[in-house]
């Protein structure tokens, strides 16, 4: 699925400066696309615009070339699975019920789950290594398990694109890597994956393309090699940052330097 924006401007009510100010980007189908940027640079707003939740003041956010604002919620949910930054569960539900919610856009209001729905949920549970936790109350899960359950729910939607806002936040190394491996596999199977993250290293390791936002504008876009330059990062994050490229793997590692030292 093609995910793109064209000179997109989004402004929250009563704000003088727009949250997104003329952002143009395009996510190639079947790639893992990382959206990076400091706090408040507009990453989450961009996600909300791509999902048709934050209305565009001018320009467009588009899915398959059609403005997101013209999609019905159900159509959109059948095509795009989304995992927001935070989620609080109001009432105890099981992991199976949470993941089953992913079938919502595929079911008519009164229909019960059919074989296809059960297959999709089982596949999503398996992909996220949750089969043994299916009957657990989600409010008793660890942070990593809960994130996996939310991603499984998005997979159960059987979407063509996934959009995730900091899914690895507050997870330990193993769980971070497990989630990124899962997203990488999905992208390799043709899923378009848009990943908002603060982890420059994970993005460098897994992403095909990346977008660096700064104060609502595009600071850089392209391959990791294009975007992850010391000059650009130091400029955008307003902090000295050193970038090292591993000669054998070609992967960049990013190290913020101690205050007072200068980037080399």
């Amino acid at each position, binding site marked *: 699925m093609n995910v793109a924006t064209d000179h997109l401007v989004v402004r929250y*009510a009563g704000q003088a400066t727009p949250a997104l100010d003329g952002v143009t980007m395009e996510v190639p189908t079947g790639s893992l696309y990382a959206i990076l940027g400091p706090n408040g640079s507009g990453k989450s707003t961009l996600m909300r615009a791509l*999902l048709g*939740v934050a209305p565009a003041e001018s320009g467009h956010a588009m899915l398959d070339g059609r403005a997101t604002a013209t999609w019905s*919620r*159900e159509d*959109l*949910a*059948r095509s*795009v*699975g*989304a995992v*927001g930054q935070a*989620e*609080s*569960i*109001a*009432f*105890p*539900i*099981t992991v199976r*019920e*949470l993941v089953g*919610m*992913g079938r*919502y*856009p595929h*079911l008519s*209001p*009164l229909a019960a789950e059919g074989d296809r729905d059960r297959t999709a949920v089982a596949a999503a549970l398996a992909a996220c290594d949750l089969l043994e936790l299916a009957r657990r*109350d989600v409010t*008793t899960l660890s942070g990593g398990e809960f994130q996996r359950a939310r991603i499984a*729910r998005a997979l159960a*939607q059987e979407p063509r694109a996934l959009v995730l806002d900091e899914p690895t936040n507050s997870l330990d190394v193993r769980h971070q890597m497990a989630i990124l491996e899962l997203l990488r596999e999905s992208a390799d199977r043709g899923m378009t994956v848009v990943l908002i993250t603060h982890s420059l290293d994970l993005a460098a390791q897994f992403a095909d393309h990346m977008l660096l936002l700064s104060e609502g504008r595009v600071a850089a876009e392209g391959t990791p090699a294009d975007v992850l330059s010391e000059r650009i990062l130091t400029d955008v994050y307003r902090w000295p940052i050193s970038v090292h490229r591993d000669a054998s793997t070609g992967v960049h590692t990013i190290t913020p330097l101690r205050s007072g030292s200068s980037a080399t």
Partner: protein
Amino acid sequence: MTRWSLGFLLLAALAFSVVFGVRFGSVPLSFIEVAGALTGGGTDIARDIVVGLRLPRTLLGVLVGGGLAMAGATFQALLRNPLAEPYILGVSGGASVGAVLVLAFGWASAGSWALPLAAFIGALVAIVLVFRVATASGRPMDVRVLLLAGVVVAAFFSACIALILSISSARTVQSAVLWIMGSLAGANWRSVVVTAAYTLPACVALMALARPLNLMAVGEDTALYLGADVERVKRRALLIAALITASGVAVAGVIGFVGLVVPHGIRMIVGSDHRALLPLSFLAGATFLTLADLVARVVLAPAEIPIGVITAFVGVPFFLLLLRRSLYAG
């Protein structure tokens, strides 16, 4: 316990409580006399009591109890708040002002319909007021604003009631207080038909919203991402639940506790899938209120205890027990 076995259990319990409700009362009647009255035979007095009083009163209990419990489950889901109950939007306050006005000005003599009608209008005024505040300026409806508006509007209505009562006669004050405490004593066939005409279609309409209500448990944003038209679901479900509450308050006064506790109890047993939670709450609320009314009119017969006293006396220990058990089980 599975939802189906609980469903059959509650259905049986409701059937029994309706039979008991018709069978027992302050005037002792045998089963044969009751059966005779129901089939058109028996004495005139027995027919008056059974067909004219007990049967409509019991059926009204079914409708009001079931409706309140279902409305409570809906409010809890939409406001994502386990403390939500049907009166949270000020519906009871508006209805009470309407009823108290009728009592204070002696309009009740115009006919038995005057008081419920005024109460219903008062409830509608409260609903419109709260909704207008929460949906101002074309923004999406914010349930926190809705809650706050409900609390504030309820406080305003309380002040209105206090004002009216402070300049009313002692007799008016007594009947107003009794009305506010809630009672099914005013039941007649007309109130049963009118309440059924409001409550039953509204309950069916709520059932059609069961799946989107499930999504509200994970938050409005996530529900949107999963394909629910959150704004429409919220407005529709809130309005329907408020109307159910309004029709219940109009005919039975402010009966507390059913709408708060019954959905909780059901949730603890079968979980939060509203496709099961809503209908099971209706059955349990109907059973609970019918039995509570039976106790209210039998224990001190021929005097009656306010039904809200019974719902609280029976409901609180039961609920605390459930709460304790579910805490240890979890």
